[in-house]
């Protein structure tokens, strides 16, 4: 009975205030979309990092069967060459620079590739033999990359020495900047959202002062009087969150997976699942902000 009463009060309130309810929905939509976009960007950065990105700085790729680099003229790398590389990595000269050494076999490289690119077309056409063997080296000081790289570049058996981080770092810096800008604007629009909710409450409380006055007089509990206002704001915020989520999922599905993944194929992209993981958080943020700001606005503008 009480529930029905509250629902009808909310319905009346929303209908009376369509303009304000719509503006709350729109501002929430924009702020939560940008918030979600920031999270998505963060997710994209994580997706682009392979297994080794955060762990090592130097990747020494060993010659495979088909390498056509000068140092691989004699075919695949031999065990002797591998032992020599290992010995050098562990030698006293490099001891000051080398922190840890990992070895990755073709099979391990294949397994990791499969995991990272599991949603992409690439992974279906790759074989174990196509994957390179490698030594991965973690440095004590990442800046000293050149010192270590010099020792192994152009050595027979070594196809290439790379600091894979280098290429990606710049891209990641860009993506991180995008994330922070996104969140910066999201913060501003969330602030707008809070103020808008407070203003809506103030307006609604004033418009309904006769009803709330009589409710107080007649002995309705404080919560009962406040609840329709709070729920109205939360419903508007929920609608905004739903639209923002739909927007984010649509962006991921159509633009990222739809267009980007087909034009720039060598990068792993975020997919709809990643976007869906963000969705509940958007709702949480939206509802909490609407709930809290409407409650505080009521304390200020509704005499109980």
């Amino acid at each position, binding site marked *: 009975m009480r529930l029905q009463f509250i629902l009808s009060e909310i319905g009346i309130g929303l209908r009376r205030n369509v303009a304000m309810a719509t503006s709350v929905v729109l501002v929430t939509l924009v702020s939560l979309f940008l918030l979600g976009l920031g999270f998505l960007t963060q997710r994209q950065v994580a997706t682009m990092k392979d297994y080794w990105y955060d762990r090592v700085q130097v990747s020494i790729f060993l010659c495979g069967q088909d390498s056509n680099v000068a140092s691989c003229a004699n075919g695949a790398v031999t065990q002797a060459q591998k032992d020599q590389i290992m010995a050098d990595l562990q030698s006293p000269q490099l001891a000051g620079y080398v922190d840890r050494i990992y070895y990755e076999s073709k099979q391990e490289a294949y397994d990791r590739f499969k995991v990272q690119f599991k949603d992409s077309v690439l992974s279906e056409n790759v074989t174990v033999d196509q994957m390179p063997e490698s030594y991965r080296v973690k440095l004590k000081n990442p800046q000293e990359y050149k010192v270590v790289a010099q020792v192994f570049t152009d050595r027979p058996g070594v196809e290439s020495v790379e600091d894979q981080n280098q290429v990606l770092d710049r891209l990641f810096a860009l993506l991180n900047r995008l994330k922070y800008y996104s969140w910066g604007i999201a913060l501003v629009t969330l602030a707008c959202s809070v103020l808008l909710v407070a203003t809506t409450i103030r307006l609604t409380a004033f418009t309904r002062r006769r009803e709330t*006055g009589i409710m107080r007089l*007649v*002995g309705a509990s404080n919560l009962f009087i406040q609840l329709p206002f709070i729920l109205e704001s939360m419903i508007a915020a929920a609608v905004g969150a739903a639209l923002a989520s739909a927007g984010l999922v649509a962006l991921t599905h159509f633009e990222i997976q739809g267009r980007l993944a087909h034009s720039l194929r060598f990068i792993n992209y975020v997919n709809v699942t990643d976007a869906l993981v963000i969705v509940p958080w958007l709702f949480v943020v939206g509802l909490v902000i609407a709930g809290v700001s409407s409650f505080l606005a009521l304390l200020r503008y509704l005499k109980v």
Partner: protein
Amino acid sequence: MIRFENVTKIYPGTSRPALRDVTLEVTKGEFVFLVGASGSGKSTCLRLVLKEEKPSQGIVRVAGKDVARLSSWKVPHLRRTIGVVFQDFRLLPNKTVFENVAFALQVIGKPRHAIAHTVPEVLDLVGLAGKERRFPHELSGGEQQRVAIARAFVNRPSIVLADEPTGNLDPATSIGIVRLLDRINRTGTTILMATHDDDIVDQMRKRVVELEDGQLVRDQDRGVYGYAR
């Protein structure tokens, strides 16, 4: 039922007290007229009973409980035991007579079948049977006040406070309203009515409590309005 113990009320920002050391007791089932000139403190008394205001000094007791000590979530329960009628009726203009009275039951969570049963009963009591679907603006002043009384009484409160209920009404209608309150009083409800209306007070011959400048100057059983000196 209602007790004022040395109650003083000074509104913030003023120096003159609205009520000065008022001691008053209203027992269960009494009918009391609260009379006095404008500004003498009649409305303040009623507001103190409802906990719309807190006394600056002294204690206000309703049904034995110190009203000032009630926590704010218990105040609604206090107000459910008190019905209030105002000079300006205070009806909701967009609701029908039935809905206005039902409102008092809805907001405290009474189920629909109880409302469908109780509201017609109380409308009959106040003499408005058949007018359930009218809107307030379609009723005369007297009828609107009856709706307000119905709303105040529908919950069978133990106390009904009336703040100048006949202020906007003509003499003939006024007497009808006060007779209605008298009928309600006879069901055992305590009535405290603040009023200017000397005719009514003289006719009814109930207990009269007179306030002047915030002080209680007269408390007379079967009293008349006229200023005693």
